[in-house]
């Protein structure tokens, strides 16, 4: 039985499936704060030191420039913060009254928050029967 099969899986995922979900050229259309400034806001608000590219790109594409600017400067309303956090944590942008759009799946931060104990659904969790072991976080 491997010790941390889930961590290995996430390492593998970095830089693979995420890119496939973002249309080429979409990022060039965005304006607003610089990428580093916006990424810093994402880190602060989410509680994660690293934001996967798929999520950062998705947030830059999905959120209006003025919302991103407000987030980057710490002046965003709660609605703007929640829209960003919803996307970062779930991989989905789900504006009220509009169709939801997925920007990432396995890279979503909600999975990273529990990755020492739970695998991302649909990805193999480890050797057959691994689930009988006591989770790392238990």
């Amino acid at each position, binding site marked *: 039985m491997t010790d941390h099969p889930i961590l290995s899986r996430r390492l593998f995922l970095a830089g693979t499936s995420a890119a496939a979900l973002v249309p080429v050229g979409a990022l060039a259309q965005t304006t607003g704060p610089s990428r580093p400034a916006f990424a810093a806001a994402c880190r602060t608000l989410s509680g994660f030191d690293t934001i996967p590219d798929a999520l950062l790109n998705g947030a830059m594409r999905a959120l209006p420039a003025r919302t991103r600017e407000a987030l980057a400067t710490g002046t965003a309303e709660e609605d703007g913060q*929640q829209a960003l956090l919803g996307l970062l944590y779930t991989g989905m942008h789900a504006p009220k009254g509009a169709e939801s759009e997925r920007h990432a799946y396995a890279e979503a931060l909600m999975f990273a928050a529990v990755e020492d104990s739970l695998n991302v659904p*649909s990805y193999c969790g480890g050797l057959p*029967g691994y*689930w*009988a072991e006591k989770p790392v976080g238990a």
Partner: protein
Amino acid sequence: MVYTLPHRPQLLVIGAGIAGGMVAHKAALAGMRVTILCDGPELRREDLVDRFRQAGAQTMMSPYPEVPHAPQPQVARTDDYLIQKGPRPYNQQYIRAVGGTTWHWAAATWRYLPNDMKLKSRYGVGRDWPLDYWDIEPWYAEAEAEMGVAGPEDAPFDAPRSGPYPMPAAPLSYMDRVFQEKLSALGYAHISAPQARNNQQVYDDRPPCCGNANCMPICPIGAQYSGNVAVEKAQAAGAQLVTGAVVHRLEVGPEGKITAARYLTPSREEIRVEADRFVLAAGGIEGPKILLMSTQENAPDGVANRSDMVGRNLMDHPGSSSSFDSEMPLWPGRGPNVISAITNLRDGDFRSEHAARKLMILNMNPVEGIAKAAIDEGLTGEALRQAVRHRTARRQVITAFHEQLPDPSNRIRPSTEGKTDQLGLPRPEIHYDVDDYVARAAKDTRARVEEIAATLGAAPGSVEHNDGYLPNNHITGATIMGDDPRDSVVDADCRTHDHPNLWISSSSTFPSVSSVNVTLTIAALALRLGDHIATEARP
């Protein structure tokens, strides 16, 4: 213009789910010329997994393509196809594709208990089956071998068996083990659930489960059995499969035999297939709808419907779901979606008063709902991250299936208001209610869950229960089985009383829904039926 196929099979199977697939496989192995008609498309597992991962909202139906000619109820808007006439909604999902609804199930493969088939004579409620448990026990065993069932030996309130399960039970998760300790102290029988999922071994050329935690809506690796396997085996044995064939009419000859089935293609061409024998295996709603659409001179109220029972006695397992936070981190979501169940409420004298039940400890990853709720609360930063982690480790869900009795007023019929699908066929119209027999049990279920939650350290008053009843997609009863042609549709062999060459293979034949998942019983009856037809057809 109707085109009659020049090909005449000895057996025409309408429907390509587990029921149709297993009947067809048996008959084809016996050398019969078999054709299978499927309304929907063939599916590829890898496509389904991609669709799941890329779906906007990940639901039980999100992996499955919607095809205009074979609409299927969706999770968020079941009334787009099913017409809900109430008073309660019958919010079921089913998949119209090769393989059918076992693409998205938890592979729970429970046998009925002997008493599940004797409700009337034993408890004075519901109906008896015209079969005894031991009549189908060998077919249960064959179905388990065919599907690859892993289950516990000599477990309490599991059905009696003539031999061992094909595989030993899947190991309990840490969460299940903690529950087991607490539940045992409370006097419950808590056992490993029998499941058609390969447990730590290759079985039937399918891989062992590696805990993808995604049995519902799609097992990504095929460790879990699905009905397409039966169809593929039938094809390998010589059966022909036609997809995009939406059967809408069965023709009745002057002597009462079925002479042909008619289907529409996606482009509305009408095709007629003559055959010697017919098996309707189109599921619990589409199947009875086909019979009721087939009104004609020799069947003025529809095919197989002299009893007026076609479409009636619609049942499900009215479900409950209760959630709470345990004191200790147990981490639901490791391994298969459901690994264990409480079984001692499956049978007892109480069934004369209220419904039998099976309670399950859900083992699905709850993190998405928890993350959304924490964000909605306004949490940010490290507090958000820690709240998501803390709550996910502790969020427990206990679900229950309640046994519903057959009631002729619960029914499906073709739209009475002229509402049609894209092929111009009437949509299913559902009248449905749940009576006090279930309500009394559901109330008791809640009290029991409250006690269990308290034992696990849940704060007083913190248990959240669902409103009403949750659907479980166990669509049963609408072509009910019985000895009396005046109040049933098929006999103990699943042959329609009215037509000697028409059989029905579906949970729609079940006289009782019991408190357990219905698929293994569907499979056992399908294998028995396939053997019966092959024997009868033998020169």
